[in-house]
């Protein structure tokens, strides 16, 4: 069994599971409760908050625990737009964002905001000049993802931050969900104001995540209630979940330090070998790509059939992002690369974890070669 769908979700690390289970067993109280049980649970949440903050190089008070990446993105985008609507009504994002960013923007557009969607080049990268030209005095929010979930392109976050920083009324949100633990990012240096994470993408559990919100910033909350989490996110705090997020971050950084160079080597190898196969068009950029994602298209073949052929050999990949797997259509992201519908309609993503081995990659390559040959034969 070779699991190459780690961008959809990762296998949680054993220590994260242990930590979740231990906290659930021993410290299950409601951290808002005033008694000892509550106090102990609260202390654990605060410790997790401070660990998460220190890994991100930010202040403890700047971490808000959420139910995952989608919620973090929704809070950041709608929360800023609603809170600061009186400052301006222009917001900017890219054309290749995850639906959990794109759709909130679409909703804001329906509610009277003017949205600029920045295009991307053949590599899937926005142009910093485009951003410069789009910025106005009315712009209150720019949201650009760090690493694209389908093709792995890394955006120039630091340069983007520097531009936005010249507009004091404008906030900068980064969807860091695919980047964290794979591609370094200095939030402070890059002038990032809000940053979303989802733990199941880096050895944590589904339904847990966080949002970094710079201290000085207020965000309108989307959930009214008990005013937990700096009044930004009401609802009983998922104590074991929060602790497991911090644990997953630590585990993830340890693996990053140990195995990054190995992952990079495998990634280059995989990229090189794939690009030499007849019938494959590479979608991931050669340079400036996250080390865990390789995306290509098989324009003459059906990518769903291809994925099923691989699955028969117990190799698990994905055809579009998992979140939209149900709607069989062109990949929105690959479409934006401007390589035509055939390419956009036949993309395949392989995504690695730090546990992926060279052997697995070689086996997968072999099966990929065979399958393409076989399916091409059948077509003739």
């Amino acid at each position: 069994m070779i699991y190459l769908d780690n961008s959809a979700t990762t296998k949680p690390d054993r220590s994260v599971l242990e930590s979740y289970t231990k906290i659930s067993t021993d410290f299950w109280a409601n951290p808002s409760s005033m008694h000892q049980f509550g106090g102990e649970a609260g202390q654990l949440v605060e410790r997790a908050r401070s660990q998460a903050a220190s890994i991100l190089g930010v202040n403890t008070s700047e971490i808000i625990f959420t139910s995952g990446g989608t919620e973090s993105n929704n809070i950041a985008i709608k929360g800023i737009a609603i809170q600061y609507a009186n400052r301006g009504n222009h917001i900017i994002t890219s054309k290749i964002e995850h639906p959990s960013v794109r759709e909130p923007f679409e909703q804001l557009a329906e509610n009277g905001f003017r949205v600029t969607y920045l295009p991307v080049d053949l590599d899937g990268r926005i142009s910093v000049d485009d951003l410069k030209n789009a910025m106005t005095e009315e712009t209150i929010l720019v949201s650009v993802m760090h690493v694209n979930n389908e093709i792995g392109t890394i955006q120039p976050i630091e340069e983007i931050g520097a531009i936005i920083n010249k507009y004091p009324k404008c906030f900068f949100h980064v969807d860091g969900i695919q980047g964290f633990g794979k591609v370094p990012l200095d939030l402070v240096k890059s002038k990032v104001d809000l940053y979303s994470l989802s733990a199941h993408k880096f050895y944590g559990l589904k339904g847990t995540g966080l949002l970094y919100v710079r201290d000085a910033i207020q965000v309108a909350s989307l959930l009214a209630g008990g005013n937990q989490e700096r009044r930004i996110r009401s609802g009983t705090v998922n104590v074991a979940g929060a602790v497991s997020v911090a644990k997953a971050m630590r585990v993830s950084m340890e693996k990053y330090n140990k195995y990054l160079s190995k992952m990079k080597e495998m990634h280059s190898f995989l990229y090189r070998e794939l690009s030499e196969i007849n019938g494959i068009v590479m979608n991931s950029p050669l340079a400036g790509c996250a080390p865990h994602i390789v995306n290509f298209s098989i324009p003459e073949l059906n990518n769903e059939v291809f994925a099923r052929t691989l699955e028969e050999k117990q190799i698990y990949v994905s055809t579009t992002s998992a979140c939209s797997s149900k709607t069989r259509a062109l990949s929105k992201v690959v479409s934006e690369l401007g390589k035509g519908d055939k390419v956009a309609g036949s993309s395949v993503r392989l995504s690695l974890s730090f546990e992926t081995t060279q052997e697995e990659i070689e086996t997968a390559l072999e099966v990929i070669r065979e399958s393409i040959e076989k399916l091409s034969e059948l077509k003739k």
Partner: protein
Amino acid sequence: MKRIYLDHAATTPMHPEVIETMSKLMGEIYGNPSSTHSFGREAKKLVDSTRRKIAAAIGAAPQEIVFTSGGTEGNNTAIFSAVRSMKDKGNHIITTQIEHHAVLNVCRQLEKQGFTVTYLPVDQNGFVSVEDVKNALKPETILVSIMYVNNEMGAIQPIQEIGEILADHQALFHVDGVQAFCKIPLNVEKLKVDFLSAASHKINGPKGVGFLYVKKGVPFFALQFGGDQERKRRAGTENTISIAGFGKAIEVYEKNLDLYTERNKNINQILREELEGIEHFINSPKEGAVPNILSVSFHDVCVQALLTNLDIVGLAVSSGSACSAGSHEPSHVLKAMFPDDEDRAQIVIRYSFGLGTTEEDARKAARKTIEIVKKL
């Protein structure tokens, strides 16, 4: 010193079977339910199995269940969705003075947006009057949101009668079922509700998961979007393992409901009897309340000191709901029950119990309370 936890209305310990189920599944089933390959499919099975359990438990169809991150999200989603879908039909909302903040604060926010909200009073037993609901209804009423069981004193509201009244009115009916789900029989068809929210952590399940029932055919607007999950009603990768844990918690509750109810009644009775030793008021209604919550007011003590002292001797109770904790504001629920008796809302202790609570715990808790109240 063995500590005693009598704050099950705030949150509950996870049932050992729930922990076992989750720990087992966690290492095995980790696919993304949206993935089409076998990892995804087996994860999706977990989610749908709990969905079916919930549906069966409340007399709904599986497609009517939307998983959420908890009670607050369920309440917010239901209310915002209802007013959005009905905004052309009126701007009047009816709720009660004793709702949880996850309803009250949404209503206050809606008032700022121009909606008119009627906050119905309750009687001294904590019950909303069906007559009051009838009288408050206007042609332009678009939503009625009333909790099934109050979290501070346990009164069960006449939801079925209210549902009857609303049956031939345009208003949508939302019920906060967070303290009711699994604790009392609950059938959405009988109750004629359009939305019902619940949370797993109140029934010995994990935190961070809950559900919202949305009646088939009722227009729905998601609060959180950006993915096709939950039939586009709640975007975000599903919290698969916690959902499976929630399913287990429901199963355990269903198997033991009679036993749990009997036990809680017994604990309730013991607390009442033991507290005879000191002057007090019982705020929970004698009839028509869930047995696992007992709210009591005392005379002439400082509630802050009382709680602190109880905590020192290892007794965990609360004065109001945990969510408004952080400060000991007088309980809005008790204020609604006794508008003319400010003290009564000030000095409230809520005992709430469940899994693991013993008769001995109840006796000790009452005795410790008496000791400390007398000392203070």
